């Protein structure tokens, strides 16, 4: 078998707590499908037959009852539950399932919505015998107004600095702004090998990684690494240019190198080797190909550890981890699949004005004289007469009484909007009741129990 897929669906959604305090992030509806359906659909389309899903018990329960998951996802899902306390990072989760992994691994995050041609990433992984291959995308500006946001909070808080070589495929440098307090420093050894480096900051990490099995074995021994994105990937990118990997015969310097690396307690070295190593060496020697030119070294500078990145610019790629991303994704996700905009079981009266870019979920009831434009209506929602819904996201089980005007808002599941309410750019939390004739603008309406949480 070539690759095993692992879906990380235990994330807490820490940046959109208003939405996730009741519904776990993997089950948030986007275009009336749970968020984790999208990466599963991507894997299924490409040809995977089995996926290991790492998630919490709550999500597992919801998965088994959700009408979308069972018929649509034909792959075999091997669900592994972990504790919900949130102490387990993504790398810890991989360590947890280490015994199930028999070959190289493709790790996908549950909040990724994309239509990338996955073979581009995997081809880099295969062709160059890479240790890590990841996907990044040019960040899109979020155009929709985010409800509940007071003022412009548009600054990118934590930029990622990504350094790639001339071809745009080899990953040379990766660091987060938070780690670069003293400025960006690049080692001379890297500059000597790759004198031309492009440093990009406007990239969004899709959290899709192809990892070699050796990396997982390394993770199993090194318990200090707990996050793939935060620790493992920068470590691997740095390790590409470390001397110990490239010169395995210099064993006495290994300890000095370890200290210099300043990696804490990484006691076990990452050993990348393959069966029939000498034969592979011979083939590479005899091949008249080099990945760079201008200096005297052989292909890949003789390094065995290689990290590659595929940067896509035109295709759709969203990571739904903030409210703005969630709203944008709801707009664009329907383009990914060709389901009819109006579900067959929805009951829509004839005098309803529905825009073509709206989606109505199953078993909805939409009464007369309503106007629904650019919105997503969830399953089992009831919309009474003379309601105007524009640019909004209505989740499942919501009841909207007559005469309401909802604009640019997000209404979570099982909410109740009283008659004549006027909501502009609001976020109505789960199960909330909006009293009739209420007028709310740019507010986050959540329950008191949510307010108590920190």
């Amino acid at each position: 078998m070539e690759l095993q897929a692992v879906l990380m669906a235990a994330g807490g959604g820490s940046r959109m707590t208003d939405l996730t305090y009741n519904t776990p992030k993997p089950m948030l509806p986007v275009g009336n499908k749970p968020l984790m359906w999208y990466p599963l659909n991507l894997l299924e389309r490409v040809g995977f037959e089995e996926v290991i899903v790492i998630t919490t018990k709550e999500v597992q329960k919801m998965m088994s009852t959700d009408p979308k998951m069972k018929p649509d996802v034909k792959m075999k899902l091997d669900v592994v539950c972990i504790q919900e306390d949130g102490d387990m990072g993504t790398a810890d989760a991989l360590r947890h399932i280490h015994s199930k992994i028999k070959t190289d691994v493709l790790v996908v995050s549950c909040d990724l919505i994309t239509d990338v041609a996955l073979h581009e990433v995997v081809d880099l992984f295969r062709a160059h015998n890479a240790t890590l291959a990841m996907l990044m995308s040019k960040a899109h500006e979020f155009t929709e107004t985010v409800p509940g946001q007071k003022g412009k909070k548009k600054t990118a808080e934590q930029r990622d600095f990504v350094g790639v070589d001339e071809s745009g495929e080899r990953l040379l440098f990766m660091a987060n702004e938070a780690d670069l307090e003293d400025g960006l420093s690049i080692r001379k050894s890297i500059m000597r090998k790759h004198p031309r480096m492009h440093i990009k900051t406007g990239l969004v990490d899709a959290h899709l990684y192809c990892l070699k099995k050796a990396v997982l074995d390394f993770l199993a021994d090194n318990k200090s690494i707990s996050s793939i994105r935060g620790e493992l990937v920068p470590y691997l990118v740095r390790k590409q240019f470390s001397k110990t990997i490239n010169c395995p015969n210099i064993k006495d310097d290994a300890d000095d190198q370890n200290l210099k690396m300043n990696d804490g307690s990484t006691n076990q070295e990452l050993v990348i080797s393959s069966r029939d190593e000498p034969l592979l060496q011979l083939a590479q020697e005899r091949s008249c190909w080099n990945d760079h030119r201008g200096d005297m070294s052989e292909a890949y500078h003789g390094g065995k550890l290689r990290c590659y990145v595929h940067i896509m610019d035109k295709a759709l790629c969203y990571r739904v981890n903030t409210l703005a991303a969630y709203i944008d994704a709801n707009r664009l996700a329907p383009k990914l699949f060709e389901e009819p905009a109006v579900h067959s079981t929805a009951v829509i009266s004839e005098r309803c004005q529905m825009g073509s870019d709206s989606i109505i979920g199953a078993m909805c009831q939409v009464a007369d004289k309503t106007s629904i434009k650019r919105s997503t209506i969830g399953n089992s929602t009831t919309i009474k007469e003379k309601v105007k819904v524009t640019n909004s996201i209505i989740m499942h089980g919501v009841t909207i009484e007559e005469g309401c005007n909802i604009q640019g808002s997000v209404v979570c599941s099982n909410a109740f909007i009283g008659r004549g309410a006027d909501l502009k750019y609001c976020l109505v939390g789960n199960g909330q009741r909006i009293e009739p004739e209420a007028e709310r603008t740019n507010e986050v309406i959540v329950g008191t129990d949510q307010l108590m949480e920190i």
Partner: protein
Amino acid sequence: MADSGVTDGAVGKDGIQQAKIEGKELTKEEKQRLRKEKKQQKKNKEKNDENASKESEEKPVSAAAPTPTQPSQKAPSAVPTPASLPVPVSEPQPAKSKADMKAGRRARQESERASKKKGDAGQPAATGKAKAAPSELQPVVKRLPEHVQVDNPDVLKKLAKKLEKQQIPLRLDYGHKVSLFSHLHQYSRRAPLTQQIGIPSTVIHPAIVRLGLQYSQGIVAGSNARSVALLHAFKQVIRDYTTPPNEELSRDLVNKLKPYISFLNQCRPLSASMGNAIKYIKKEISNIPSQCREEEAKSKLLSCIERYIDENIILAAKAIAKSSIEKISDGDVILVYGCSSLVNHILCEAFEKKRKFRVIVVDSRPRLEGREALRRLVQRGISCTYVLISAVSYILPEVSKVFLGAHALLANGYVMSRVGTSQIALVAKAFNVPVLVCCETYKFCERVQTDSFVSNELDDPDDLIVTRKGRTQLEHWQEVPSLGLLNLVYDVTPPDFVDLVITDLGMIPCTSVPVVLRVKNVDQ
């Protein structure tokens, strides 16, 4: 020339046979005679035994002739069959003698199997299978391989069917082809075959997918490198192979390898050295006795592969280096073209043996492989000069010898190598500079070719597009209907331009290649 002489008893029909094999135009009387004989054979269907025995007589003789028809049955796309030049002549033939060919081939196979097993079962099987076996007429009409008949829609349909059966996707041709080469495939590097197969590839072993990708992207390039990488991938396949129940390893493994070979062929047409390596492996696999345990059989195959690489690549390179060093004297100026792993090895060895010489590296677009050769030589300390092929006639007065590498050596003494080699050989001949070709014997192939058109490889035409000062002139070349971009990979050099071929069997003239082939066949 093509030394495929089938010397037989009956003279008249043999004459026709000879003419067919040599591809001469059959005269009217000969054609009439052929037709009469066919009718006679159909009547003589009952006389199997006599025919079969006569068949078996002819078999050892005809087996000596280039036996591409047999392996072509097993792996038509893998082994290059003798693509004889006169296409129009051979085409009407297959229609007539298809049944005879099949029967003849089957009978031949049976007899060979019988001779292998030394059993009596061979003969009666041959008699059973040889239905309308023509005793006198030996139908050795060569079938053209698929990869040089791309403009024939029937051939393409057959290929598509075959690939569908093996569950390998068909790679589509790209771009407008120059009319002279419209019979060859032309693929684009931006549309790899992996687009069409599922990501955790279940049909094809992951090592083979990786190899195919490396071939199509040019990461593994060069005849020796490709063969070594192929054998490495086969080692992984054999390691991961388990015999299904009720199957024999010797037959099932060969069947398993067929779709892999088709896949690799779709990624990039197989080279002659790869074809020979595949032939060797298939032979080794089918020679495994059925009572051998799986573990034992697998380890035996793995050691066979290692031995093959050792003998034919590593030791051969050493032997060739040893012979070539005698030819390099102090003060020599050696011209090399492109990046040949063997020639680089020779020069590095000679330098280590303290010979004083300098090298001129000639390079050509679009591959610019000479830069890699330059790097390897300069890294060792050899003083080099670098020119493009357009400057070859200006630099040749300085040159004392030319060393060329080869992709394959054809049975008529022609050297198939990177495009541009024949140019260099021609100019060197004009300047009376000796041209030495270095080639291992495992690259010798039984094909016959006298020009570079009949069988070649077309690389991605977009490689020719270059961006200078921010402008790409050829960016929209596809929109110009009268413009075609041609990116040839190989060309053939006639033996008149080559003075010596240095092989691991010694230094031979170009015309001795068929002798070497015959010796190798007898050995096997």
